[in-house]
């Protein structure tokens, strides 16, 4: 029983990373209709920058994390403005040609950013210097909760809640959704579409970057390929949760993490990812609008 709860907690902490990353990933997909292959690289770069901010500049931990998040957001804006903006002339967000073009430019950025990250890390897997981050372990009877797991879970709650609030309660959120539906119409409606797009890209990169930093710390692995693992599972969380639904993404991320850990503990670690992706497929087939989306949908 003790093992069960310990693994449940591990699964939640792991899933919180997927959920966090997924929220950033889903933001771009929901707002701009872009399947962004470069999203993982935002996470890698945020972690690399945050690590060097501590290692080389000696910044205190919270400041370094903030610097990393900023870096993730700025890389995202760069990719958006160089790689996606020229393609928006195709028309509204979800046009197939635009989606395809953006997928390809995002692949191009993925290749470049990951390769550059390889140079930045000297092709090594590095880590945050031991002792530079909170390493305390909270004990409650037989249960233990390392500080980084607590921070990750809190991060998901704060970011997820914050984004949900922005999305549903603020003018900015409404503007984001308007741009998602149709940038031209949104422009006519008095929303400066370009500003909204840049802000969305920044948020998306910052959130995925935050996930990258947390993942880099708790797995003691900061490398060019850090983002890739997050990317595949984060993508699954987005689809299962419903790509425009932040609550759904957060819960789906947690569920995927728990599923993954329990599969490895109680079933088979080699089929573990198979379960996660089969769940993803199942959701696509049966509830393509995600956890909280309406089940029915029509072909346009």
């Amino acid at each position, binding site marked *: 029983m003790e093992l069960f709860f310990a693994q449940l907690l*591990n699964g939640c902490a792991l899933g919180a990373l997927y959920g966090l990353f997924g929220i950033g990933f889903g933001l771009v997909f929901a707002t701009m209709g872009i399947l962004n292959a470069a999203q993982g690289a935002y996470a890698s770069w945020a972690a690399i920058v945050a690590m060097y901010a501590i290692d080389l500049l000696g910044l205190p931990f919270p400041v370094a994390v903030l610097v990393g998040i900023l870096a993730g957001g700025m890389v995202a804006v760069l990719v958006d403005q160089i790689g996606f903006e020229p393609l928006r002339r195709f028309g509204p967000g979800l046009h197939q040609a635009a989606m395809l073009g953006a997928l390809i430019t995002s692949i191009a950025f993925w290749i470049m950013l990951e390769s550059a990250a390889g140079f930045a890390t000297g*092709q090594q897997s590095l880590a945050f210097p*031991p002792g530079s981050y909170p390493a305390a372990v909270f004990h409650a009877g037989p249960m*233990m909760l390392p500080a980084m*797991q607590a921070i990750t879970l809190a991060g998901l709650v704060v970011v997820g809640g914050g984004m949900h609030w922005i999305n549903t309660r603020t003018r900015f959120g409404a503007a984001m959704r308007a741009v998602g539906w149709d940038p031209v119409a949104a422009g006519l409606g008095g929303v400066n579409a370009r500003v909204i797009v840049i802000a969305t890209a920044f948020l998306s990169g910052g959130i995925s970057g935050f996930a990258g930093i947390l993942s880099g710390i708790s*797995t003691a692995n900061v490398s060019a*390929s850090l983002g890739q693992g997050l990317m595949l599972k984060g993508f699954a969380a987005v689809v299962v949760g419903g790509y425009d639904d932040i609550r759904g993404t957060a819960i789906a991320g947690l569920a995927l993490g728990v599923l993954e850990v329990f599969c490895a503990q109680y079933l088979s*670690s080699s089929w573990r990812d198979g379960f996660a992706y089969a769940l993803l497929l199942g959701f696509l087939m049966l509830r393509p609008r995600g956890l909280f989306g309406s089940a029915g949908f029509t072909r346009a």
Partner: protein
Amino acid sequence: MLRRTLAALAAAALLATPAFALDAGAYKVGFVTDNTGPLAFAGMSFSRGAELAAAQISAGGYMGIGTKLELVEKEGAGDAARSIQSYNQLIADRSVLATSCCILSPIAGALKPIALNNKVPLVIYGATAPGLPSLPYVYSVTGLPGPAEVAMSKHIAAQAKPQTVAYFVLSDNEAFQARFKASQAAMEAAGAKTVGVVNVLSADTDFTAPATQAIALKPDLMMVYTTQSPAAGIVAAVRARGWTGMMSANDAISPAAVFKKIGPPLAGVPFPVNFSPDASETPKAKGFIEAYTAKHGSAPDLYSAQGYTAIWLIAQGLKSLPGKPTREALATALSKITVLEHDVYGGLPITGGQAETRYTLFLNWTADGKITAWKP
């Protein structure tokens, strides 16, 4: 007496000077690197070792004064298709006499038939699948896994007498599966029961859950059979969860980069290794470590030693040939080599094209980042 001494000296001098010698000039060796891609962390060490070897061979006149060895590097990026293309470009250059390649066994397996078809000597520097070498063209300078793990297992079983063992195994890697099985057999023969096997995958990065799983098995000893990144992550995760019991790992955690990353939690975790800049003490090893540190600014690791050895083997083959050698002649010459002259391991016997390294070093990191001999 004097005459006999003089005669002996003359004979020694005659033996020391080859009866025939290579023409002066540059002899090209093709080298498929993995300096980008997922294996770049090791790939860069392999090629740095090889570059050092080529520089030393050329500068020192090992194959004759003015006879140089030129390394021609092409990128394989850890990808089979790209490695094959790079390899074909290397051997299409007729002045390339020998080639060296490959960290991954499947890629080595894919290049081997090309080497055989084109009759080009190929010295494999990293991949360790059994059966790769094929005389007279394909050689491997890296010992097959197994003996080292068995030796370490016996050593640990004798020294620490664990009753129960839990294993971490990279389930999607054949070489580590083999190492694990060899070790497990040795441990069980010594009376240490297996209480559980925790499988992880190559692409995994989060080891908190596997660590929790293993700790719950309450073993006397945890043995880690995975590649570098997972091994480092597992040790860190197990220690972070407060488990202080005994752990062992493998040579993947020997590079300095691993300690820089993980730090004190690595202390006291033994690993078997055939080369370590801190523990290898033969004169050739010391020379290599000094020269490498001078050239690259950091100490070599086991990978750079392997890349270095591969090029020295080729040079040794070339040295035994006269005039302008051919690929076929070089292959024949290589097949006659049974002992590597210039090795950093303190003895590198080669049988049937496969080198055997003698793993004699059982080392561990200390809390302040030094490598010392392991004691329980």
